[in-house]
């Protein structure tokens, strides 16, 4: 079976106008994602994990290498790849349901069809009763639910999530992790999820891609043995296997951070 997403030899470098240097952000990234899989990407900060996601979204162009979605090369942004951003990217001048239906509106889906899809996703993310509220009337967690619903409602082949929970408080973050897990099973979609939290990556992912320090490379890909259906907070912390994997991933990233610190120190 062909992969849903194939990343092949991806290189990204850009010119930093302030330091007047060409920066190599990603060097030779390759990995594959199967249909229906939930893959998380972790790495030390500044390793280019968000850059990787925006390359897949087509918002930036890679310097070399290619990205295939269902075997078709990515050349720009497209409705086959929906994205949830770290910042609350829903439009403040649209109500919850107008935001959720925005993608469908762009795809010129009829009003009746749109309304039924909106209703379905409002329910899926638990925002019943808030359909006509404006984003400023919602908490951060609710805004991100709207963003998730908006992305899913547009029916993309893959969903890209760029640290969607990073701007939320700890309690909301934990709740939304479970929500995202449930939604991922309910919507049966392929998800690529970037995070800097090891706990999050291991809790959510079928597989965890660990990126090396800057410039980013795939250091290791860890498969999580348990199925997503079984995972719950806080019982997951009692699972010995889960804690071991978390520890392993954590050590792997820490090694990268320490090496990065040494390099910086040597430069200084």
């Amino acid at each position, binding site marked *: 079976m062909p992969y849903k997403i194939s990343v092949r030899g991806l290189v990204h470098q850009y010119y930093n106008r302030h330091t007047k240097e060409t920066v190599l952000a990603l060097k030779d990234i390759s990995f594959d994602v199967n249909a229906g899989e939930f893959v998380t990407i972790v790495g030390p900060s500044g390793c280019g994990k968000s850059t990787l996601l925006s390359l897949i979204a087509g918002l930036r162009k890679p310097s070399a290498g290619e990205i295939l979605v269902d075997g078709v090369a990515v050349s720009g942004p*497209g409705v086959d790849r*929906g*994205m949830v951003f770290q910042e609350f*990217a*829903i439009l403040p001048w649209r109500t919850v349901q107008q935001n959720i239906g925005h*993608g469908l509106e762009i795809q010129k889906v009829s009003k009746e069809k749109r309304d039924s899809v909106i209703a379905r996703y409002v329910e899926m993310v638990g925002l019943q009763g808030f359909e006509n509220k*404006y*984003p*400023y009337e919602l908490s951060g967690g609710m805004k991100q639910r709207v963003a998730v619903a908006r992305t899913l409602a*547009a029916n993309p082949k893959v969903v890209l999530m760029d640290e969607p929970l990073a701007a939320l408080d700890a309690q909301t973050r934990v709740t939304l992790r479970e929500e995202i897990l449930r939604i991922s099973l309910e919507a049966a979609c392929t998800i690529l999820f970037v995070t800097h939290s090891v706990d999050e990556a291991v809790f959510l992912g079928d597989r965890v891609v660990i990126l090396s320090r800057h410039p980013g490379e795939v250091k290791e890909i860890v498969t999580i043995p348990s199925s997503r259906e079984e995972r719950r907070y806080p019982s997951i912390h009692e699972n010995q296997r889960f804690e071991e994997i978390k520890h392993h991933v954590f050590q792997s990233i820490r090694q990268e951070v320490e090496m990065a610190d040494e390099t910086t120190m040597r430069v200084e």
Partner: protein
Amino acid sequence: MITDKSSSRIYAIISFSLLVIIWWSITNFGVISTAYLPTPLQVGTEFVSSVEKGTLLANLGISLARLLGTYIFASILGIAAGVAMGLSPNVSRFFRPILSFFNAISGITWIPFAILWFGLGNATIAFVIFNSVFFIVAQNTMTGVQTVPEVFEQAMLTMGAGHLRIIWEAMLPGALPSIVTGQRLALGFGWRGLIAAEMVAGSVGIGFMIFNGSYDYRPDVVLMGILVVGVVATLLDQFIFAPLERRTIERWGLV
């Protein structure tokens, strides 16, 4: 309970009453001769009589028509220019210095130049209003568009939106608070430019009426005209633009 709004209204009434009382005392008791500063009563009488004679309303109507026509025209062009500059960093880098420069020149500075070009009359007045409005609108629109978070554009791109759609559904609404602020400032500048231009280049209009009053040795006409200019500007600002500005900002919780 005294709300913030009503208490500030009370203060406004008190301060204006105080001003009128001072004015009344110094004119009534001959501190300043009424040949130079008319009494409140004289100004009030002139106001009533100029309404009766049709001079005030007709002049005011002409002035407002001039302002409105040019203001709308200059605003549309200013918004279009501002959006174009806000969208492209290169275009804005190119035009921003020019814009700041022209913004530093107040609209009325163009009056002599406009007279050279268009002579005395409506074209000159329109040119001055245009210059008072266009640059400030363009600059505020540009700033507004530039402050729209990039992630709105990215989100719409991933939903398959085209550029026109992104401008219409993300850039313009996002820039709206700044655009409204620009419109508000521009109306004030346009009104000032109009009055000044009418004084120099008009043969009708409220500015002309004031200026002509001084030729006729009619301080009551002059002062009445000045007060009307102030009242009209305040009404336009406080009753149309201030609420509009508050609402666009409050509506979407954009602060």
